[in-house]
């Protein structure tokens, strides 16, 4: 692209360009696709019609979203296609497209835009759905993600997660930042910066808050942080260590680990920090609690049997723990899937720590990665992908793998360690 044209377009639309083209104030996660699904649906996303720079920016985000999912093979259409124009079905069929998305973006006054999108089935020459959005220039990326969600859901029958956000910790020299970004790594913002470590961020079920562990007081303390206001409060700061928070599905309580009565043990507290009650008692370590999506069980890691293994316990105090993992001598960090049918966790095999997925009905487990230092898995809210931390060439990166192990992505930040990912809930 010629710089002069870009500059002109930017002058015409200052607010938009500052958000689209200005160098990011903080290092952004870049995503590399390292594996894709076996049967990808051939999909054409035509350039939307409208002001060229803006339409292209929008379309490129939509294409990148859908491509990254690993479920689509993007077909080039050659020319823009307006929302209300009949797609050139014969040509699209020849190019191999099964579906075509087209759209228009137009100024709607007050600096706002109206974007319309249409999805059509190419072999049937039938419209699958239409959608319209009114948005500002700065909401262009958000709108693109919503369009991606619309296309994804129409074509796969499951919710898209392109509009969701992720949280993660970036460690650079002497500095830790808890960052929030769009699911594609865009628009990163720091919720907290500290000279001391930050670990174990978890999203509240409504996506408005994060609970996490910060070491700023020279010991682990659990905080609950409201993202809109930036205000936070201490949820647990008892004598000893306070860690491993997990939200109850109703968002009212946290399961967490306290050591006030000796070894690391499971407790429940109200989100305001009141009413700490002990959930279980063991002679060893109990940690990493996670509620099942229906709230009935708490999965956790315990060394009560001699090696760290995953157990589950009824979420009401006083129940009996049931052991879940039996293979190997190191199975930790249980994360139930959003449908409650499977369990992601980290298993150690021959000194390698790898992400595994267990079908909870059959207890069959499968290792999903070929890396060696996997940690902290986090399901996408539609259950399709699992985001986790790993290490490549001595540097912390995030990676994502589909629950069938086929689609693989790597998310990294230049010259910094990224760790402790947490995928946020579905929005709206």
């Amino acid at each position, binding site marked *: 692209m010629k710089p002069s044209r870009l500059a002109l377009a930017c002058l015409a639309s200052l607010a938009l360009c500052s958000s689209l083209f200005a160098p990011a104030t903080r290092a952004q996660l870049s995503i590399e696709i390292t594996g894709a699904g076996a049967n990808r649906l051939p999909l054409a996303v035509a350039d939307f019609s409208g002001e060229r720079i803006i339409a292209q920016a929008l379309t490129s985000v939509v294409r990148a979203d859908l491509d990254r999912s690993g479920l689509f093979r993007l077909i080039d259409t050659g020319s823009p296609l307006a929302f209300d124009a009949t797609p050139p079905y014969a040509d699209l069929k020849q190019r191999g497209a099964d579906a075509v998305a087209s759209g228009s973006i137009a100024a709607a006054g007050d600096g706002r835009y109206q974007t319309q999108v249409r999805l059509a089935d190419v072999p049937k020459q039938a419209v699958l759905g239409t959608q319209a959005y009114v948005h500002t220039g700065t909401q262009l990326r958000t709108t693109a993600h919503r369009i991606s969600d619309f296309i994804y859901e129409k074509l796969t029958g499951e919710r898209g997660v392109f509009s969701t956000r992720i949280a993660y910790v970036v460690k650079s020299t002497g500095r830790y930042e808890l960052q929030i970004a769009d699911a594609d790594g865009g628009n990163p913002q720091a919720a907290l910066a500290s000279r001391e470590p930050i670990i174990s961020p978890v999203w509240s079920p409504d996506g408005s808050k994060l609970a996490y562990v910060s070491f700023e007081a*020279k*010991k682990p303390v659990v905080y609950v942080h409201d993202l809109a206001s930036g205000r936070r409060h201490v949820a647990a700061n008892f004598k000893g260590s306070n*860690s491993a928070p997990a939200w109850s599905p109703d968002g009212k309580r946290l399961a967490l680990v306290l050591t006030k009565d000796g070894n690391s043990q499971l407790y429940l507290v109200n989100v305001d920090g009141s009413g700490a009650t002990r959930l279980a008692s063991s002679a060893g370590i109990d940690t990493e609690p996670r509620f099942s999506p229906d709230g009935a069980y708490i999965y956790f890691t315990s060394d009560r049997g001699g090696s760290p293994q995953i157990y589950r316990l009824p979420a009401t105090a006083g129940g009996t723990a049931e052991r879940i993992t039996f293979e190997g001598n190191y199975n930790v960090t249980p994360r139930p899937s959003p449908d409650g049918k499977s369990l992601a966790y980290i298993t150690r095999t021959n000194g390698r720590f790898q992400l595994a997925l267990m079908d909870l009905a059959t207890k069959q487990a499968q290792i999903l990665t070929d890396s060696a230092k996997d940690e902290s898995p986090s399901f996408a809210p539609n259950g399709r992908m699992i985001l986790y931390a790993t290490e490549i060439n001595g540097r912390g990166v995030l990676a994502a793998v589909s629950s069938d192990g086929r689609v693989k992505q790597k998310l990294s930040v230049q010259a910094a360690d990224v760790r402790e990912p947490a995928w946020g809930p579905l929005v709206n």
Partner: protein
Amino acid sequence: MSTPLSATTKVVLLSLTLLLAACGSQPPAPEQNPAGVESRTPAAAAPVTADTVGKFDPLSAAALKDPRSPLSRRSIYFDYDSFIVKDEYQTLLATHGKFLAANPAMKMLIQGNADERGSREYNLALGQKRAEAVKKALLLLGGREDQLEAVSLGKEKPACTESTEECWGKNRRADMLYSGEF
């Protein structure tokens, strides 16, 4: 220095001098690594500061940072997957226990640590077990419950960052911090 120093004291003095020069906030270097220390002989000539000369009261607060005092030794190292305080640390812990008893206003934060392998939260629990083991020992040796807090830094604050057995050994550690140091 007219009093002859024991070999151990020399090593401790040397490692402390090196560490203080390098980074004041780091816990003392492991005493198990004399080879590395001896190879850096020029630092042996580092001047003795005013604090370390003069009258030596073994149970005064000044002794905490006095390299001649065992109280300046703050780290307890553990074997792999172990939470047992080794016998070699009994004398050191007894000295700290005596100090805590003699200075009832003094508090101690015991920070347990773990090596880098595995889950962050599980390592936090492992570090906690190490801190608790040191706390239990000190409770038997003169420390009071309200003086002692055992916490864990897990694998978050490694003293050594290489993926080697030697390095991991330095990170399986509990550090004792006194009032004013945390």
